[in-house]
């Protein structure tokens, strides 16, 4: 087991942790945090796995994809946090409104 | 500093290696001291003091030790720039956090002077 295998396993673990947190945590800001963590787990697998196949030579294609992904993740995080603030302003709490009751939070 | 080929591998290189080892070791010790202070000190202001001063000094020792290994003066100048930048960053962060904490009403721990620590 080389170091790059280690990073691949760590990326898979981090993705699983983020997915679990997205599903379990109700708070919207932890959902945004967890989506960020999930994305970094994918980046880790995406960089460590091809670097293992050709040791010593960096493959530029996954690096370009990950670089684009980081920038897109920052922009998407800003958008998601803005939406979460609007939800908080409407319903008074940073949680998604329950779809069963229509007492508050309607459009 | 590029050595002439008859000197490379001689006593000067091993002397430089020894200097690098000592300086980097002292720098690592200061980092350890900063972390111990961060974990053990009773107060936010004491922790800021320990962290910013000790860690910046440790970084200075480490960069000074690594300058001895560099081949030319370009990379050495870059290391000096990194250290100066970290120095100003630590000073700025320490001042900002301390003044904001004072304004927010966090009082320093009283009674440390009575234990004979201060002059």
């Amino acid at each position, binding site marked *: 087991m080389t*170091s790059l295998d280690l*990073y691949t396993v*760590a990326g898979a673990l981090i993705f699983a*942790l*983020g997915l679990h947190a997205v599903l379990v945590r109700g*708070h919207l*800001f932890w959902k945004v945090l967890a989506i960020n963590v999930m994305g970094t787990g994918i980046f880790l697998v995406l960089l460590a796995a091809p670097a293992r196949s050709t*040791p010593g030579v960096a493959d530029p294609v996954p690096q370009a994809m990950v670089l684009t992904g980081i920038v897109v993740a*920052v922009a998407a995080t800003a958008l998601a946090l803005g939406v979460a603030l609007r939800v908080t*302003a409407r319903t008074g709490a940073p949680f998604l409104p329950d779809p069963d009751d229509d007492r508050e939070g309607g459009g | 500093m590029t050595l002439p080929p008859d000197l490379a591998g001689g006593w000067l290189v091993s002397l430089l290696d020894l200097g690098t080892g000592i300086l980097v070791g002292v720098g690592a010790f200061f980092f350890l001291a900063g972390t111990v202070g961060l974990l053990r000190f009773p107060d936010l202001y004491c922790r800021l003091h320990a962290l910013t001063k000790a860690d910046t000094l440790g970084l200075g020792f480490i960069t000074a030790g690594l300058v001895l290994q560099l081949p030319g003066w370009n990379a050495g100048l870059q290391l000096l720039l990194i250290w100066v930048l970290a120095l100003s960053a630590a000073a700025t962060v320490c001042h900002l956090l301390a003044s904001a904490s004072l304004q927010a009403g966090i009082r320093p721990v009283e009674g440390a002077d009575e234990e004979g620590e201060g002059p």
Partner: protein
Amino acid sequence: MTLPPDFAGGWMVSLLDLAVAVLLVALAARLLHTRNLFEAIVLFIAYGLTLSLAWVQVGAPNIALAEAALGAGVTGALFLNTFQRLAERSREGSGMVDPEHGDRGPEAGP
């Protein structure tokens, strides 16, 4: 952990990789399961910097540069900004949520 013989740096590098990977997983687990929103934000910044170290070890220093600037710096500032907006909102509003302890309690689940 056996390394291939052409792996430069030897066993010390693999120990460093092990420490960075374990620190990454531990940071992710802690920041996703804590109850304190501010602690989660600071741990996320630390997570981004550790990830930058991991990318240095994987062999992509350019991505480490972008991660340290964007993933940890800009995203951390965004989260801090939103944290303060949320704290203002809950302090002047109905007080349904404590910004320090984000979940509403045991009834927060579905």
